């Protein structure tokens, strides 16, 4: 058994050194990848809006809707009537405190009359919505009412505040979930608006 001869293969339970190096390198590469991924995660962790869902409707036609107006409930309004010019649609409700926070910002922007500003009142009893607008001011050209929330599902709306930019042909060009700030208007909404107007 101990006669000299070719070296016996290394016993099991232990791989030859070359193997260790190979396995080790693989594991180490994986480890580096993992650390890189986690580093990315930490950097992103306090970015505002990191939980916002990106909309799959960007670049697609806005869904047809047929909703009553807040101030003239006998009148109904459809998407077709808004074609021809881009418009911004802001989803809000009196039950939403964040909407109060963004209200001054969007009111300021709406007053510049840069683009048509439509309000989309979501799941709100009519009196509450009217009272809220009286209290905080009404910057909207008009307000459509979706009390049941059914049309909101077609838009992929899941809460408030949310803001859409729809172009002259009824295609959704931009969506923002959460409070709109002056920076967002300047850095995202205006450029998207300019693109939409130019592309016509």
């Amino acid at each position: 058994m101990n006669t000299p001869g070719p070296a016996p293969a290394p016993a099991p339970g232990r791989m030859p050194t070359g193997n260790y190096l190979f396995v080790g390198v693989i594991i180490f590469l994986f480890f580096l990848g993992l650390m890189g991924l986690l580093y990315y995660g930490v950097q992103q962790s306090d970015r505002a809006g990191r939980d916002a869902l990106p909309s799959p409707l960007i670049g697609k036609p806005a869904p047809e809707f047929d909703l009553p107006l807040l101030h003239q409930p006998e009148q109904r309004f459809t998407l077709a009537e808004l074609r021809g010019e881009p418009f911004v649609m802001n989803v809000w409700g009196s039950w939403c405190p964040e909407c109060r926070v963004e209200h001054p910002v969007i009111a300021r922007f709406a007053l510049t009359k840069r683009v048509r500003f439509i309000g989309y009142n979501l799941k709100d009893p009519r009196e509450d919505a009217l009272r809220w607008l009286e209290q905080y001011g009404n910057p909207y050209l008009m307000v459509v009412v979706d009390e049941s929330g059914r049309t909101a599902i077609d838009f992929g709306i899941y809460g408030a505040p949310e803001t859409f930019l729809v172009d002259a042909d009824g295609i959704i060009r931009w969506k923002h979930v959460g409070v709109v700030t002056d920076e967002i208007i300047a850095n995202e909404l205006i450029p998207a608006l300019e693109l939409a107007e130019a592309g016509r």
Partner: protein
Amino acid sequence: MLVLPELGQVLLILAILVALLQAVLPLAGAQRGKHAWMAMARPAAHVQLVLVLAAFAVLTAAFVTQDFSVKYVADNSNTLLPLVYRYTAVWGAHEGSLLMWTLVLAAWNSAVAGFSRGLPEVVAARVLGVMALVCLGFLAFLVFTSNPFMRLLPAPLEGRDLNPLLQDPGMIVHPPLLYIGYVGFVVPFAFSVAALLDGTVDARWLRWTRPWTNIAFGFLTLGIALGSWWAYYELGWGGWWFWDPVENASFMPWLAGAALLHSQAVTEKRGSFAGWTLLLAIAAFSLSLLGAFLVRSGVLTSVHAFAADPSRGMFILVFLALVIGGSLVLYVWRAPRLAQGAPFAPFSRETLLLANNVLLTSAAGMVLLGTLYPLLADALGMGKISVGPPYFGLLFLILMAPLLMLLPLGPLVRWQREEPGKPLRMLAPWFGLAVVIGVIAFFSAPQGPWKTAAGAGLGAWVLLGTARFAWTRLAVPDRRYTLEMLGMTIAHAGVAVFAVGALLVEGMNVQREVAMSPGQTTEIGRYAFRFEGVDQLQGPNYRAERGHVQVFRDGEPLVLLHPEKRAYASGGQVMTEAGIHPGIFGDVFVAIGDSLGTAAAGPSVAGVSAAAPGPGAWAMRLHVKPFVRWIWFGAGLIALGGFVAAADRRFRRKPEVAQ
């Protein structure tokens, strides 16, 4: 106040210094053979425990005396909080629970210092040195980013509150148990690093490590099981596991730990797999640290996660990178020098345990992949995707099914080489019986036949196979049945019981959501639920609406259940307390939803009385959950098995000191 919170800070800083001492001197001393330096390890460990324990006591005192000048106390309790929860609120949020983590770490440290006399001095010094480095990391994390003793001045008159979900006996015990388990994996980890530094693994030292691993594993099992049970009765919708990132964070070390303790057994008895064993120990503790990172860094969104802070996230990430990266580098550098073990044939217990390792490790890898995939997709710009129970459940079943099939073979197959016919012949009749049981279950299940059959069949197979092993042992004249064997038997039986519970409840559970007014009855299978109205109730810090539901089984009254909806005074948060009737073969579970006033129309589910609910109608959720208790009972058996095995006399014999 008798004690200033600042004292707590001072104690933690002292602990850092002591940890530094315990790390540097013994490790250096082990390199150079200086006895005096190595001897510092044990007393330093004990002193560290005293310091951290004192700091913990200071924080507890702040809570009990309701010192709202301490920010952490103000954020997590208020004057209405009952006394018992004032004690447990200490670990209710990030800073305090991190202090508890550190306390548990210091306790393990001290325990190892006390119980390592049997190890050669150099080995013990290295083990304690490595543990001290880990302690240092956590103490630094506490003091520099997560100080629980920060002041809030001027002190508010009233605090916020302890989250009402945490005001519960289950939540008192769950974190400590979980931490004792999680953190306990530092012991085999430290041992691995010490062995790698030394360049050899003596099987006798492994004999020292095994009980520590088993005990940590047992506590981790209990912690996870308790968390699952708590979610079941507290969250009100009857689920017991959600594959939520934080749950996965505790499950990954469990899977690695299960592989580890089997691998350690092989290395101790046969000298083989030393490389695997050391790597698995590094992996298990790395996964524990990764879990702590995921929960506290805000990287993943989860109902369970603590509020995030990128600076904390970076700190743990760097610590994680150093610990894992460092130990991996050490492994690749030193592992090739490890001694080999005896060769083994393709059909042998070694092969089966290797298969066990591969399956458990793949499962851990799968859970890691699924948990981090949404983050990866986001990083690579592939949008937001979700990975949830349909993925995890399916793949876990696929990976665990072969493991369950092979499990009964393991104990019956000899080391090194076994003739396949022998164990297969011993088990064949039991396999047949298990198949028959599965088929019977398939045809008699009211719903979910495949899952029910799988649960019954697999569970029966594992249980019968394990019993066959026990019989083999007891049939031999000397009837030698060590505690280690007994522990294994109990744990494997626990796996069977768990499999039965998990698969049967997923297959056969029934839930109905119906509108009911007082006097109405809904039927589900053998059970009937008669709603008898809701009244108001005042608790110590909440107002509740309490329903009364009379449950009948086979026409006979069984129990009167009281589901509640509590509104807590502090934040207005609403909690649902389900009414549960526990049973060996199934639970009855009732929760109340919203009040419907007179708006509800009559439900038309089969078996419900056709009359429309009138005034006082409520939305009710009714569940029947067969065999659900077997899940936690099985887990309890697994934990018990771990503890029993750890008590075996072979581990208490002092290993002879190597030259």
